[in-house]
């Protein structure tokens, strides 16, 4: 975009000066002047984050409970076991389904809400608050509410029974077919507010004259949305897709608090499976190997989405 083009030009100019204007005979490359200033942060991030990743990578080659001395070195056996672990693949499948469904629904809802709020509807500020409130509520607070709501004798079934749809009443979080949709519903409820806010902010950047010109050319609301607003939102959508994908890979709180990854692994995600292996089952090495795989998948996904976004911008 504009900013990156400018930065690129400036960097190119600096490279020209450095290569052509340096004093002959100077030994080695010039030391970047900012190093002392970033050193504390560098030490902290290398020490805490990258050391942590490296140590997790080391642990992933062990058969270890996390406490006992003398862990057994396994090499890559944990990784090969993961490749044959049906629960791991189930977790991956859930992650993909979860990402696709939550991203699509949140995008549609967020976009529609943003468009409606820009239409200066009555009590708009009130609706904005209503849509955004779930974002600030902690999942640990809401989980018991949802557990109760979706229980066999919960509010959802009560409502269904009182509107003549009693045949649809069922134990929503107690059966494998409906537990994952419940988790996705809760996530959509929780995070649509963020999608809405980002789209709402992005829409304020659209030049009103473009929309005005479209109106003069006879474009209706739907045509303006599809042909002008939606294309202008591409950068925001890419960012949301990236956040959604990484969020899906990191999903832990809602499935753990509402269904504990069950029933029968029906809502198992990589996060809950890592926890299950590492803490209750004490397979710290296996859990570390799962964590490394999670990290690699997250990086690849982020790079893939970034690449796809740039291609789409071109």
């Amino acid at each position, binding site marked *: 975009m504009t900013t990156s083009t400018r930065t690129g030009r400036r960097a190119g100019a600096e490279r020209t000066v450095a290569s052509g204007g340096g004093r002959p005979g100077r030994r080695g490359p010039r*030391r970047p*002047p900012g*190093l*002392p200033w970033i*050193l*504390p942060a560098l*030490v902290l991030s290398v*020490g805490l984050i990258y050391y942590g990743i490296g140590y997790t990578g080391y642990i992933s080659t062990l058969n270890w*409970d*996390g*406490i*006992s001395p003398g862990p057994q070195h396994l090499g890559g056996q944990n990784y090969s076991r993961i490749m044959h672990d049906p629960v791991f693949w189930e977790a991956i499948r859930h992650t993909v389904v979860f990402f696709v469904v939550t991203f699509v629904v949140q995008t549609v809802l967020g976009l529609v809400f943003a468009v409606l709020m820009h239409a200066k509807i009555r009590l708009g500020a009130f609706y904005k608050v209503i849509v955004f409130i779930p974002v600030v509520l902690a999942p640990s607070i809401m989980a018991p509410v949802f557990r109760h709501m979706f*229980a*066999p*004798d919960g509010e959802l079934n009560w409502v269904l029974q009182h509107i003549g749809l009693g045949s649809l009443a*069922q*134990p*929503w*979080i*107690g*059966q*494998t077919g409906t*537990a994952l949709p419940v988790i996705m519903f809760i996530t959509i409820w929780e995070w649509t507010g963020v999608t809405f806010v980002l789209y709402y902010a992005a829409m304020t950047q659209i030049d009103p004259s473009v929309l005005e010109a479209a109106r003069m050319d006879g474009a209706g609301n739907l045509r303006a949305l599809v042909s002008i607003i939606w294309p202008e939102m591409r950068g925001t959508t890419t960012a949301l897709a990236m956040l959604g994908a990484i969020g899906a890979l990191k999903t832990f709180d809602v499935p753990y608090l509402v*269904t*504990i990854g*069950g*029933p*029968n*692994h029906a809502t198992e995600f990589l996060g809950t499976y890592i*926890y299950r292996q590492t*803490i*209750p*089952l*004490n397979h710290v090495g296996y859990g570390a190997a799962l964590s490394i795989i999670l990290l690699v998948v997250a990086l690849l996904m982020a790079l893939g989405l970034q690449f796809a976004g740039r291609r789409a911008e071109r």
Partner: protein
Amino acid sequence: MRLLPTSRLRPLSAVAVAALAISALVACGDSGDDKAAAGSATSGTINWWGWTPTDNATAETYISAFNKQYPDIKVNYKLVNISDWVAALRPALASGKGPDVFDMQPGAYVSQFKSFAVDQTPLAQEALGDGWKDKIAPIGISGLSADGKLTAMPVGSVYAGMLWINGDIFKKYSLQPPATLADWKHVCEVLKQNKVGCFVQGAAQEGFDQDTLQSIANSVQPGLWTKASTGDAHWNDPGIVKTLGIWKDLFDSGIMQPGAVGYQQYPDANNDFLTGKYGMVMMGTWYTQYATTKAMTAALSAAGVSGAKPFPILPVAFPDVAGAGNTSEMYGDADFGLAISNKSDNQAAAKTFVKWLTTAKEGQQAIADQLNDLPSLKGVEPDFDNIQLVDPATQKDPVAQLIEKANAVTEPRESLLTADVQDAILAAATSVATGKASPQDAADTLQKAAEAAGVTFK
């Protein structure tokens, strides 16, 4: 703008990095050496963490009885839900900032936490003499010992293998406790016709699924479950396959409540039973405490029922679900022992507390009278003159018989199972219940998982 030339900063950076590294090493170097006999034996503050007693009121009863004799030792009880126990305790113990005294359960927990526990053999000898092993229920000692070390002093034992029924509901609908699978289905039909839930189980929690499965297995072939646990029989033995088939029938016939595999025993099933939504629940002798007015009232309050009238609960034998004429025997372990952290700064006071609760007659009488555990010290029994049951006329005999029967139990409950095998049992139970696997397939998978977990089979 440069405040200092880079060349002058370089040594400073090196010093900073070195200082960070050294401080990190120093922090890591605070190893968990034993702090034997640290602190005073008669005063101080000790922190006790446990998943049981499952309510603070019971723990406070023990503590206040202890404080009558040792007023200068303050005991803080922290109740941790059993599902969070490992996650909470492991980092707390490893950091050295955790509890001075913590609950220990036979089986998987002993192997996980034995390295943090002080050997309590000297404490037992000091309190009970050289013949201390003869004075304590043997089921408590074996399960809490590992590597020649007594990791915790047994407080009391629990036994399972029975159902608890809501006496008021059964009386209201003129029902008899089920003796067979057909009876059980009939009771459920009657209750459902009257819009009352029949049997509630938290089938998402492995420990409670194991109880029901072990009871079914005891009905199919007494002792088979224990043999599979020790490796003397295979988990895909035809008897276990039949057990899983009956387990599936409990779901298909509507004995189990809808959505049982998404239920936790605590709090879901427990709350549903205590609030009168269901007529039966699978709980062990620890549930005897709710036969008392005091504990039942507190439990109802904890379940969110204000001003509710306590109702009488009654223990009944697990039905002969296999129809083979086998009365399902009970099984049990030490419920919990009290371990002392080897990183505690208050070990002397902690030993005083543990010694009193586990070996003193007053401490064990307090345990017995709560009816949460059967005391580990031989010769101590509940004093029913001081225990107020909700309905003594209907409860006193069944409760007394239950305690008498439990004292003769020798079949272990969970102490033979590792965490991996327990996880595999849960997987088998839920996959059969949800129809994802046949009983035979689930049993075969369970057998493979047990072999992978290191169990040696004959």
